[in-house]
């Protein structure tokens, strides 16, 4: 669908009497780091929901993003041919954000079209939440996190007593969206650059072609069982490696997206005043670059990611979320990534002064690399439509770490968010 038909469809939706909900979300952000203005961006997301039949909804939204700064709007190469932005200029991008029909049929529900699929229960870390790709144009310093990208998919959900089934077929091999080479948050750590440690300009980087919509399609199945205060879920996802495997052929780095299979388990339980979450994912055919191979050899390994987390009410009426994530690969060979990554997260939120102000503090810490990210944000509600915020992202640690690679990108941010 090109821009004009998409805009016409959305405009018709926003104007239609049948539309039962229309909103326009957006934000205007400026950020500065030690080199000056690092981000100046405007994001506007109009959305309309229409009733098109008995209980059948059509949801359509667009995403207009413009950025005239070193952070940019992100790479263009991560999108599959059918999800390519309608406008993909250097400073302006227009995407169909979501465009789907939601059709209930008794205990079944079908969702057909471009949609976001959110699995998993751990916050911010995508352990089993691997169906929809994510925007990583500012590393892990994005709001929301993960900021999922909607993909074209057919989804069927079914309720059978206490059991829920969720089946997804997504012929849309869109990968995670990274920052453009040269942008403020383009990865710098060797593990993301085929083990290379560039002291000068990077070699050219290109994405592997992902034009085969069927062979590279994502297939997902999840079964959930709810008993008293407990949720148990098992999932299977077959699709491309959305992170990509960077391989250096002596001339350039190619970001490959091999197919992989992931089996996931989730356990969520309410223990009185605490909700505990446990997730584990096993990928028997993960691929990583072998260290010492000059970046041109990737090997297949077993990857197991486990995460445990808890939500509870803390002192002074705060909301607290703590998590520990362990990402382990079994390989006899030395890889460009550590054999085990251990990351802890802590988030504390508090609303005060009649919900006029909100304070959010977050600490992401890599135990393996001794690096991390501290995020602070104070927001003030102007009214029910507008709020302003002042925030800071402080990256620290070694330049080879997940967070430390951006240690020169610590920044202060300010802006306005709105919902109309």
């Amino acid at each position, binding site marked *: 669908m090109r821009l004009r038909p998409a805009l016409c469809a959305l405009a018709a939706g926003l104007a239609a009497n049948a539309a*039962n*909900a229309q*909103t326009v979300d957006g934000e205007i952000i400026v950020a500065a780091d030690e080199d000056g203005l690092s981000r100046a961006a405007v994001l506007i997301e109009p959305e309309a*929901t229409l*009733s098109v039949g008995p*209980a059948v*909804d059509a949801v359509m939204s667009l995403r207009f993003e413009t950025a005239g700064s070193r952070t940019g709007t992100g790479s263009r190469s991560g999108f599959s041919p059918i999800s390519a932005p309608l406008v993909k200029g250097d400073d302006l991008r227009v995407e169909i954000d979501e465009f789907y029909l*939601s059709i*209930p049929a*008794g*205990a079944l*529900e079908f969702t057909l079209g471009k949609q*976001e699929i*959110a699995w998993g*229960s751990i916050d911010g870390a995508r352990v089993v939440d691997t169906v929809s790709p994510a925007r990583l144009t500012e590393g892990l310093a994005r709001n*929301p996190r993960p900021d*999922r990208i909607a993909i074209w998919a057919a989804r069927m*959900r079914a*309720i059978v007593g206490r059991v*829920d089934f*969720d089946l997804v077929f997504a012929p849309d091999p869109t990968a995670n969206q990274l920052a453009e080479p040269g942008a403020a948050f383009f990865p710098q750590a060797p593990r993301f650059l085929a083990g290379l440690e560039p002291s000068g300009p990077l070699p050219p980087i290109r994405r592997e072609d992902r034009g085969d919509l069927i062979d590279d399609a994502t297939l997902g199945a999840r079964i*959930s069982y*709810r008993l*008293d*205060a407990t*949720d148990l879920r098992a999932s299977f996802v077959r699709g491309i490696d959305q992170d990509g495997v960077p391989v250096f052929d002596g001339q350039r780095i190619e970001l490959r997206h091999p197919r992989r299979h992931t089996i996931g388990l989730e356990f*969520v339980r*309410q223990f*009185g*005043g*605490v*909700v505990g979450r446990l997730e584990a994912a096993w990928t028997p055919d993960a691929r990583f670059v072998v260290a010492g191979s000059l970046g041109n050899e990737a090997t297949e390994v077993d990857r197991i990611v486990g995460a445990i987390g808890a*939500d*509870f*009410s803390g002192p002074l*009426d705060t909301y607290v979320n703590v998590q520990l994530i362990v990402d382990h690969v079994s390989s006899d060979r030395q890889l460009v990534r550590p054999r085990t990554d251990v990351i802890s997260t802590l988030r504390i939120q508090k*609303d005060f002064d*009649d*919900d006029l102000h909100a304070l959010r503090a977050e600490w992401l810490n890599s135990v393996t690399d001794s690096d991390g990210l501290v995020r602070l944000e104070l927001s003030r509600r102007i009214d*029910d*439509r507008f709020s302003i915020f002042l925030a800071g992202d402080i990256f620290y640690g070694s330049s080879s770490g997940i967070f430390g690679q951006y240690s020169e990108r610590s920044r202060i941010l300010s802006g306005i968010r709105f*919902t*109309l």
Partner: protein
Amino acid sequence: MHKIALIALSAVAFLSLSLEASAQGNLTGEEIARKIADRPNADPRKGTITFVMQYKDRSRKRQARMLRTETGATHRLLLAFDQPASIRGTSFLSYDHKSASKTDETWLYLPATSRTRRVPASDRADSFMGTELSFGDVKDSFIFGLADYDFSSGGRAGNGRYILKGKARNARVAREIGYGGFTAEIDPATWFPRRITFTDPAGKRLKTIAVRKLDKVGASWTATDFVVTNHLTGRLTKVSLSGLARASNANDNLFDPARLDRVSGRMP
């Protein structure tokens, strides 16, 4: 002989009056609380609930569509927020299990995260969507948790209403529910609290809920107009329920937490 008969009749009359008084006028606190808990509440109901929060010269409004049903052992409440636009699509679901051995369950769907989350039981005391009601107040449907309080009766007020007092069973429960205790006026015609004054866990007067209007669907009473006043902060929340009606066609799948992301457009 007549004298003996009169004495016997008087004794019988006195005894029966005493029994009746015991049955209707001198109920224990536990008995009153149980009558409130056993109040008919099973009729499926729907309506639009409006919260108007007032503080000093500021006023905010939240509006949600409501659906209540009961499945024998569990009372279920579903709220789908429509206004303001910033919270449109947010949905709240609670299961109140009648069995004391089962933990009550609450879920919240936030469109910003695209996920449905279980809300910890300790969050019963937290403010519900910025109102002066707590999560517990919303899901409890004007029923005092039998496992949460030790009850006592304060007799009857001049208007004939029972005075029911409750004290949180222990400090942990007080922290969880956010209340150290309460004093309530109970209407014996409906077994509905008409005025409740809560104290905080430290014993300070915290807030008063004054029920101004009740409406009936089937055998179930619902508060359709009430005011919550927070004595510590001076904030006020006015709650009104419009369009209250029997929700005989309510789809049971709406009450599945896995579907909470789609209920907004599906509420009857």
